[in-house]
């Protein structure tokens, strides 16, 4: 039994790594966009496919990851400049912008389907090899890479967010965009940076999430739904710790439910758990406000 629980802990940690990266990326692009946008699914989808194509041609796994993440960053900046900046400036409602992002995502799914076909492809270069730990715990190379990479990325993110000028300005923008403008922060430039960095994090989540599984044109959406839910817990406003905590809850709940009742129940039950947490957190907040 202990072996099983230890093994489940590794599975939950690997899932959390991917969800955490996706939710951080999602919150970063929320800072300038200020609405929940489905474009977040585009880097999750495109990056692993680009990595797959580069690995196929060059045989180099590292090169594939580097090029695909760079492409994700460039795409993020480009989409902000070409689409979101103009949409925001034109004064369209968040709903209309949300529909536009759905269009972008649908186009990306179509393009991937046309280029790579609907058939699933695999990017994992490690076969089924695993690291054997005490208690018969096995950690696949892909899982180890996910956990390690996510830990490093979250640490870097924390340092940039808390200790640098860039982080300070992004925090100012997250708090109040108009005030940030008054304070002479070049909002447009930082918004583009937030989009590029967010797309890189989302792309990284896509690559790591796609490692152990097969890539399909539809595989990105469930991951982005999780990121959206985690961001909703963080109230979409740069509350990264809350989003990370929500990602952890989803990962642990999914793993436990899948273990107990099968994978078909994992996602619905974990999302219901989150709704319960949201309601509970809302009640707590109301109570504390009343006391104030």
């Amino acid at each position, binding site marked *: 039994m202990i072996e*099983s629980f230890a093994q489940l802990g590794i599975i939950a940690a690997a899932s959390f790594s991917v969800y955490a990266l996706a939710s951080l990326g999602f919150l970063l692009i929320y800072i300038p966009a200020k609405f929940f946008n489905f474009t977040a699914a585009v880097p999750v989808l495109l990056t692993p496919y680009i990595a797959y194509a580069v690995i196929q041609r060059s045989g180099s796994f590292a090169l594939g990851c580097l090029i695909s993440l760079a492409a994700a960053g460039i795409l993020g900046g480009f989409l902000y400049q070409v689409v979101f900046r103009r949409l925001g400036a034109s004064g369209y409602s968040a709903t209309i912008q949300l529909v536009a992002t759905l269009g972008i995502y649908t186009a990306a799914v179509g393009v991937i389907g046309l280029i790579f076909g609907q*058939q699933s492809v*695999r990017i994992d270069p490690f076969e089924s090899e695993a690291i054997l730990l005490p208690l018969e715990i096995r950690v696949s190379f892909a899982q180890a890479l996910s956990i390690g990479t996510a830990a490093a990325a979250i640490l870097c993110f924390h340092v940039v967010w808390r200790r640098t000028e860039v982080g300070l300005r992004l925090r100012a923008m997250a708090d109040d965009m108009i005030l940030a403008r008054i304070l002479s922060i070049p909002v447009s430039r930082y918004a583009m940076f937030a989009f590029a960095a967010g797309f890189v994090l989302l792309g990284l989540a896509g690559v790591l999430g796609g490692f152990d599984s097969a890539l399909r044109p539809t*595989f990105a959406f469930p991951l982005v739904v999780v990121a959206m839910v985690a961001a909703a817990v963080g109230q979409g406003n740069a509350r990264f710790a809350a989003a990370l905590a929500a990602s952890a809850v989803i990962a642990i709940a*999914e793993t436990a439910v*899948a273990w107990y009742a099968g*994978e*078909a129940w*994992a996602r619905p039950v974990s999302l219901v758990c989150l709704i319960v947490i949201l309601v509970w957190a809302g009640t707590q907040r109301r109570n504390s406000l009343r006391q104030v």
Partner: protein
Amino acid sequence: MKKRGWIILVGLGLLIAGGLWFASTRGWFSSRAPNELTVGVILPLSGDAASYGEKGRRAVEMARDLAAQSNSCGPVPLRVVFEDSAASPATGIAAFRKLRSSDGATVVIGDVVSAVTLALAPLAEEGHTVLLSPTSSAPAITNAGPYTFRIWPSDLAEGTAVAELATSRGLRRIAVMHMNNDYGTAIAGIFERTVRARRGEIVLSAAYNPDTTEFRSTLTRIRAARPDAIYIAGYFADTAVIVRQARALGIDVQLLGTTAIEDEGFLQSAGSAAEGIIYPLATGFDAASTDPAVVRFVTGFRQRFGATPGWVEAAHYDAFNLVCRATAAVAPNDPSSDAIRRYFEGMPPFQGLGGTFSFDRNGDVVKPIVFRTVRDGRFAALR
């Protein structure tokens, strides 16, 4: 005046709608030439099962062109019209209605997915149109009606055969993972019933949704249960991921799969983890066979599409050729759907790429099931 205007407008609308309905029932909108017979082909050309649909389309195109060259379908020319079902019953129904009313299809080949075929069957019965499914295996299709036929055995046959093979090999304690759809649920249910009837034990049965990519939680539980075998009732993409994750967790028991895994994509995706998996093949088709008909098909397919055909292509090729033979036999005298249905009901055994078969009184195919495995990175007959 205003009221009278409305009455005239509504009357005109009703008149036009009635006229359109009458014309469509008479086939006046049909784009079919008077001396030809239309064969509709409904396939999932988009969506989750699009890879199967594309394979089917290629096979039917090839069969159509070869038949046209050899004039083997008789004096009545066949026109083939493809429609996309997107593996969705609603889209499939729209495609069927379009084929029936606009194209005047006499026979419809389709669908790959059982849920779509089951949705089309009532329309086939209602419109007296022969529906021939190349690969649908849901048990419910057996009772779908006299106009519905299939050349793929029911899950009942496949699930029973795998369970019998497993228990006869001494695999008594079996864990089951199945896809949470018509196909996976039906085949797993039949498998489990047969194992229990043969004094075996199902140590765990877990469902997963089609978009699932993480199976390690269930596999951890399976590892703790120490079964003799794991039966995976799903398609090739999810089975490949399960197989890889099982091996990575150190699960080294016998793996059992479904017919759906015989696909190059499975070998590519599962890699060395696929070695030794046993699965049934509800068709005797073997691309490496020396049978002249198979060699001609495989060579032609490779030349035309640059890929080796598998069971999906073979099933669709056989389906079209069966329709071709039926029309050659009956269409010169009676080019109706009823005549083709009567031909299917009483036809002599048909020699297809997947072996010789005929239909039983329910329209189900009658043919044996063979077992295969993955050996040295290739699909091979089970010794």
